[in-house]
């Protein structure tokens, strides 16, 4: 069961909106598919990103995956702990493994994303 209060993308990112700030990460499903994560490349603070643009890279022992922005806006914070402990994405993807925070330009963009039930249906099919 994924957290019910979050929104999800088809590319397995999750979003939590608090006011105008969206916290973003990847789901446990994604982390499990990738395997042991060894490196995370996140966008620099201040960069403006558009929805679904590639904003970073997640590298595991066996593959490299692009990270897509679930919503557009300005990057205001990234999780500094991930550079020393990328394994947080595997151990706590919805909590300590949060990746970055974006000041959202258009909160309406979240309406187009999947809710928990829809995301679970997506991963059940896979």
């Amino acid at each position, binding site marked *: 069961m994924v957290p019910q209060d979050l929104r999800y993308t088809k590319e397995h990112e999750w979003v939590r909106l608090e006011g105008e700030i969206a916290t973003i990460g990847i789901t446990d499903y994604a982390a499990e598919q990738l395997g042991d994560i*060894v*490196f995370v*490349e996140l966008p620099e603070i201040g960069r403006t990103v558009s929805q679904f643009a590639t904003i970073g*890279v997640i*590298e*595991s022992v066996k*593959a*490299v995956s692009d990270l897509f922005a679930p919503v557009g806006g300005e990057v205001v914070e990234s999780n500094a702990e991930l550079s020393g402990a990328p394994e947080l994405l595997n151990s706590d993807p919805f909590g300590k493994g949060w990746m970055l925070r974006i000041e959202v330009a258009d909160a309406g963009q979240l309406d187009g994303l999947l809710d928990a039930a829809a995301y679970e249906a997506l991963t059940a099919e896979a």
Partner: protein
Amino acid sequence: MAYGPHTNEDRARMLAAIGVESVDELFADIPPSLRASKLELPSPESEAELTVRLRDLASRNRVDLASFLGAGAYRHFTPAVVDQLLLRGEFYTAYTPYQPEISQGTLQTIYEYQSLMAELTGLDVVSASHYDGAAATAEAALMSCRATRRERVLVGRGVHPHYRETLRTYFGGASLVADEIPLVSEGPTAGTTDLAALERMLAGADRPVAGVVVANPSFLGLLEPMAEMGRLAHAAGALFVAVVEPVSLAVLATPGEYGADIAAGEGQSLGLPLSYGGPYLGILACREALVRGIPGRLVGMTTDIDGRRAFVMTLRAREQDIRREKASSNICTNQALCALAAAMYLGAMGPHGLRDVAALGAARAGELESALAAAGAPRMHPGPYLNEFAVRVPAAPAVHARLIERGILAGLPLARVLPDDPSLADALLVCATEVTTPDEIAAFAGALGDELVGGTGHEGADREGVGRETAR
């Protein structure tokens, strides 16, 4: 594992297994008109006949000359142990043996090579090697663009002209820009990179610079103000790339010491024969922070599931088969045998031995400078050098050709590789190493003195006084 060629029985069994009558059937899709029928080759020769033919070809090489040629490839003495060990079948014929299950020995040698280069350059990470110094330099420049996400690199004109050309070739395909930093034309720093020009080129926020690439010693043999150039580069947000000569690193400040982010160089000096230009060895090293951007293979040390030390190719996600178009590396091989020779050479020489090689070369170069100056060919530039420098010789290309007839390879006429610089039209780039002998130096100076005295027109008359002195 059996490595014998296929027998007819082998072929028959394979054809039967796939249900095909003959090998020709497998090429049925290629129209008969396009199939190769025969190759226009001379008829085969016996090993004895071929040996004679190759020996005749080889005899056209001049190996009898007293050589003062450097310019990127240097004469050094390689202890016999290097060539002997290199011939071992496990090393000599193994091809890209990267599977850790069966290649621990080879992976360890690559790891040792990487470790030795890290020590020599003073940097943290070294790739498993590249094609040659020119390729390594071009890759270093590309690295600086990737790391800074900028598209313009400044390259000193003191970097080897062939390396600059290779860099332009690499940049052309990627739509990147390489601007050349001029050299100082006169004064005490003549011949070295123009710092004021560098500073001007770094300013200008509309065309930010990704990297500054400078060689030390330079192609003209001069020592460059590396620490100062590194500071200028970093102040502008650019990376600093040092192109270096590995033997010199035993006595000169290292890239790590003067703040370089990346070092590239030619490893031929480390136990590899001149071989008319190759195979050579591209050395590439960088700071730890840039490890994910360095191209080439990387061998790492780890432990296996039983806790034993093991070596393995690592950080593979940089490479093209995983990263595809975003790869920092499209290099799927290295100069393994050459890198191994370099590691063996360094192991045989040790740090003291390598220092002796560099120091002896420098000492001989000092003697060479005096002898040539007395013969009428003074140094062109006033600044410090290690073991290579340019001397002024009127009609240098012609004198060079006549000296070959006298058994002397008088370095390189700079007009040949730097034709656009009129100040170098009458210049020879000469070099001495630990194998240069006092007799060779005396022969060179004597022959040069004769040429300058009895030379063309008025140069001969002007030099007569000097000529008489050296003939004493």
